[in-house]
């Protein structure tokens, strides 16, 4: 650049020298002054040149030690703000209120799903202590994570007017610490659930039949199922995949300087928020059918011992396998 500039000035001088002899001095003067803005960087040009993605920032060089401060303007923050204040609220409200409405409607129409043959009075072991421990560790963490997460988006609207800004800030601070620390047992629980239950959750043809029969929820009758039926496999994979997405995105939000810039943090925040509310919706359905929605279902994760008739209706092939292994159902003593 320096070279071209000196060549330019050389020609300018040459022009002046030649011009003196050839033409009027006025023409020579037009060539001589240097326009200091001819190549000056202008904000409007830089703003117009911005593209979504990696080139969405105007930045330069900075002489203070904090290299991150070299970004001058990052208009993408406005889109993230629009997302967080608009789309996020909408998706969250639809996922959670929508699911609650569906569940209430389902309960009113279908009622509690009873064991068709009535309780057998004898039980079979469905989940051992370790299974139940990892389920409830993960579930307990998830409930706190979900509530403290929802608080970040909706608390300002729903709770703050009730408990006041000082009380709300103190609660949100506690919620944030709970969210950050419980993330770790949640991730461990996820990994253990994956390892322990993946072998029984591989999708197969039997699951297609299960869905074709409406899982026994919509239609009549009880489709065959092994240890986990089609619906439970769906719950398993949404927890594992959704949980993995929450873990990865949450990791970057927890360790912000590993994410590689604010634009990436905005992206991970979007992933975290959307996957979070969708998974909360899915877990509402899971909790419903595992408790008030179905007779005998809660025992699986409560005592771990389920009624034999319940097991035969919902997991016929699993019961057969267990019997072949020589498992003897235990008689209940209190009843009869």
């Amino acid at each position, binding site marked *: *650049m320096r070279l071209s*500039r000196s060549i330019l000035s050389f020609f300018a001088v040459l022009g002046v020298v030649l011009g003196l002899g050839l033409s009027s001095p006025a023409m020579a003067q037009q060539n001589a002054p240097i*326009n*200091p*803005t001819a*190549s*000056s*960087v*202008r*904000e*409007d040009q*830089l*703003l117009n040149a911005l593209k979504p993605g990696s080139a969405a920032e*105007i*930045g*330069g*060089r*900075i*002489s*203070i030690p*904090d290299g*991150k*401060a*070299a*970004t*001058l*303007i*990052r*208009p*993408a*923050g*406005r889109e*993230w*703000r629009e997302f*967080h*204040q608009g789309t996020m609220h909408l998706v969250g409200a639809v996922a959670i209120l929508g699911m609650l409405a569906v569940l209430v409607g389902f309960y009113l129409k279908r009622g509690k799903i009873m064991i068709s043959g009535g309780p057998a009075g004898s039980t079979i072991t469905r989940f051992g202590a370790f299974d139940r421990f990892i389920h409830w560790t993960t579930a307990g963490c998830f409930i706190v994570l979900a509530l403290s997460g929802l*608080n*970040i988006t909706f*608390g*300002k609207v729903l709770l*703050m007017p009730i408990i006041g*800004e*000082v009380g*709300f*800030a103190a609660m*949100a*601070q506690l919620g*944030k*610490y709970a*969210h*950050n*620390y419980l993330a770790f047992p949640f991730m461990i629980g996820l990994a253990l659930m994956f390892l322990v239950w993946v072998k029984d959750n591989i999708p197969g043809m039997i699951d297609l039949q299960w869905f074709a029969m409406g899982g026994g929820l919509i239609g009549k009758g009880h489709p065959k199922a092994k240890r986990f039926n089609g619906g439970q496999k769906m719950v398993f994979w949404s927890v594992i995949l959704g949980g993995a997405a929450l873990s990865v995105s949450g990791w970057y*939000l*927890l*360790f*912000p*300087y590993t994410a590689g810039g*604010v634009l990436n*943090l905005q992206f991970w*925040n979007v992933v975290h928020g959307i996957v979070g509310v969708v998974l909360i919706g899915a877990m509402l359905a899971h909790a419903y059918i595992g408790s008030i929605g179905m007779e005998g279902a809660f025992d699986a994760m409560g005592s771990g011992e389920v009624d034999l008739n319940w097991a035969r209706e919902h997991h016929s092939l699993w019961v057969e396998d267990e019997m072949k292994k020589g498992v003897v159902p235990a008689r209940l003593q209190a009843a009869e």
Partner: protein
Amino acid sequence: MARMKFLCDADRCIECNACVTACKNENEVPWGINRRRVVTINDGKPGERSISMACMHCTDAPCAAVCPVDCFYVTVDKVVLHSKDLCIGCGYCFYACPFGAPQYPKVGNFGSRGKMDKCTFCAGGPEADLSPAEFQKYGSNRLAEGKLPLCAEMCSTKSLLAGDGDIIAKIYKERVVKRGYGSGAWGWKTAYKETVAI
């Protein structure tokens, strides 16, 4: 009432970083935080420009919109301030800010970022004006003393202007008209959704 704004005339900025230093000293800014910084665009090329940047005290500020605990407030002079007592250090303002203004005293892992810190337009915080508690949390309150932010007041080339938006826009406009060029009111379009029309 005035509508306070910053305007950096990049054609005058000589990247001396005195505004950065003055701000740190005047406000006793925590270690590792620079409320103001000078960025040089196209460094070493013809037409390079340096711009001093801090919180622009945006109209309809994104930080305030996304804050989950609503710790931001706007003064009568339209300066965007926040309460460190309410701030939970979640980082949302830091995601939303187009100017990288919100910063945290700790290099934030495990939610231990600490309370957010940013330029206050030398207007302190929610505590009583000029109280020791206000100074300790937010730094100087020069506006309460009838002064403007120190960064702009001591700018050696009068590149950085701070004050009522209409007045500083007029000064900048006159300069551009007189000298015949100007690289723009940096950040204005993003912060105020308007720029200085020349």
